[in-house]
């Protein structure tokens, strides 16, 4: 006979883990884009939202969740590359503020286009038939879709790690994060890599959006809401660090989930307390490079 409180802790831990995985897919793109392009992409949350809606449309058109899971990130990633190529690239020689402000403009643009096409209501996205049930683990009943999200997210994280640490492309990206100018000096077409990384980050955000769909539904403001969490993850983990974005995501995912379950009155505050503590004790974040 399992102890109820332990079952509850276990269920919350898994909830927090599935949420953390979503945050990881978002923050890893944000942190890579920042590391390479020196741009804090405020429209990153919008790519997440666009991913959810693209998923919604593709599921409505084809009835196939798995197709949407693959196609939506490709579409949104292409859009991200277009944004980088046409609007961000002319701004690289300007102060970094201009680039941040440009991405802020895109938030309004994307959010309103989504409202135009789909309306402002919350739209629920059905979970795939394969994972529509629930499983009982250690006395806790958990939607099987959550288990899928965790396994899928961790798999993507492992694949990302292999891509970045073990391939030639990955070493170019790491070099670019470290020193883009020097990488260009070595004969790498950094501009093409910039476009690719921006699009790849957008695609990961969209992937996160599609996966989040069945859990949180789709609504136009979801992008601006998740962006704040993502920024906190990156501040906690350290800007430009992959390890940091994984650690930050898992910490913030657990903190917010347990906060909601156990301290509902102050739940929204907890993540800010975590952030303030990290900033006080380690301004560069858990895995960030020391600040000058």
């Amino acid at each position, binding site marked *: 006979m399992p102890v109820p409180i332990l079952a509850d802790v276990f269920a919350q831990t898994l909830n927090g883990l599935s949420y953390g995985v979503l945050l990881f897919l978002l923050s890893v793109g944000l942190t890579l884009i*920042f590391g390479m392009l*020196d741009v*804090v992409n*405020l429209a990153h949350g919008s790519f997440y939202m666009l991913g959810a809606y693209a998923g919604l449309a593709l599921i409505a058109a084809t009835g196939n969740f798995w197709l949407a899971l693959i196609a939506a990130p490709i579409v949104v990633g292409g859009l991200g590359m277009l944004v980088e190529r046409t*609007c961000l690239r*002319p*701004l690289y020689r*300007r102060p*970094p*503020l*201009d680039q*941040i*402000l*440009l991405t*802020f*403009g*895109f*938030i*309004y*643009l*994307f*959010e*309103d*286009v989504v*409202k*135009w096409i789909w309306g402002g209501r919350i739209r629920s996205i059905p979970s795939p038939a394969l994972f529509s049930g629930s499983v009982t683990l250690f006395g806790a009943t958990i939607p099987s879709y959550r288990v899928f999200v965790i396994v899928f997210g961790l798999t993507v994280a492992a694949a990302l790690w292999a891509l970045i640490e073990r391939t030639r492309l990955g070493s170019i990206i790491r070099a670019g994060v470290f020193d883009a100018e020097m990488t260009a000096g070595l004969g790498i077409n950094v501009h093409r890599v910039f476009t690719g990384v921006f699009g790849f980050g957008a695609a990961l955000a969209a992937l996160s959006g599609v996966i989040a769909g069945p859990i949180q539904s789709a609504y136009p403001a979801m992008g*601006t809401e998740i962006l*704040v969490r993502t*920024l*906190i993850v*990156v*501040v906690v983990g350290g*800007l430009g660090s992959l390890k940091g974005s994984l650690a930050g995501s898992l910490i913030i995912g657990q903190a917010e989930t347990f906060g909601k379950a156990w301290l509902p*009155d*102050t*739940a*929204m*505050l907890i993540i*800010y307390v975590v*952030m*303030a503590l990290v*900033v*006080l004790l380690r*301004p560069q974040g858990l895995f960030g490079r020391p*600040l000058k």
Partner: protein
Amino acid sequence: MTARVVAFAVVIVALALFPSVAGNYPVKLLQEILIWGVFAMSLDLLMGFTGMVSFGHSAFFGLGGYVAALALLQSPGALAGLVLPAAAAALVALVVGFLSIRVSGVYFIMLTLAFSQMFFAVTFQVQRLGAEDGIVGVPRPRILGVDLAGATAFHLYLVALLALLAILLWRIVQSPFGHVLRGIHENEARMEAVGYPVRRYKLLAFVIAGSVAGIAGALYTQLNGYISPDAFFWTTSGEALLMVIIGGTGTLAGAVLGAAAFILLQSLVSTYTERWMLILGVTFIVFVLFAPGGIVGTMRGAARTARAWPRRAGAARRALRRQA
């Protein structure tokens, strides 16, 4: 210099007299412009003069608004309407600034943004603050024996405050203190090396900007009679940044012009179409890409070209003559 003073006086008088020639709706729009103008000017002190881009300025706007709402419900006077909001915003700006100034650049942007969201989270959840509905039915104060519930009195009060705060901020940026801030904007490391306590200067600028933003928030509550957590949401900071950029950073006047352009565009566009946000986003993108100096910067550039034109034309004529 005197031309500038005269122009300023003329603008203020025109703003004050506006209700005698315009209907209710344009007056309400103008009053919104005045309040957002104050808010945007306070942000310009930070980003335009000191080079500190804060994405969390809404924290002080919202705080001023909430403190004014709570205090005015107790006793509607000058203390509740202006002094307490400004003081509370200054105090919180001291704490938030102390924590945020430890980092700079994009970290500063993200930290300030996160702090403002913290206030959003608190006001959104606390039932005693009305949770997501905010605080409604806030009365306007009586100040110096004048009841600001009257439309004319309230309008003059807003214009007078805009004028006072504009002069105050103008004096600040022209003062030796203001020149140190500009120096920090130009080259922080050099100012540090010359021996200025850069952090203390930045913190003081942050506190001044925060308390002025608090006054703007208090006025916002008084204009509408309510305040809600939306005032704290980070897009409020983004809109203020937008106004400063559209108007032209580092000019103060540009901030007010930007607020006017933003609010007029919003009201104009929303009478024709629901797609206000789309047009806002595109306008913003176009400004960042093609007119980074904003309205004031573009006008100055145009004036310079116009002044240079006869000279250049003369030079061209002479060159042609020489060739012939």
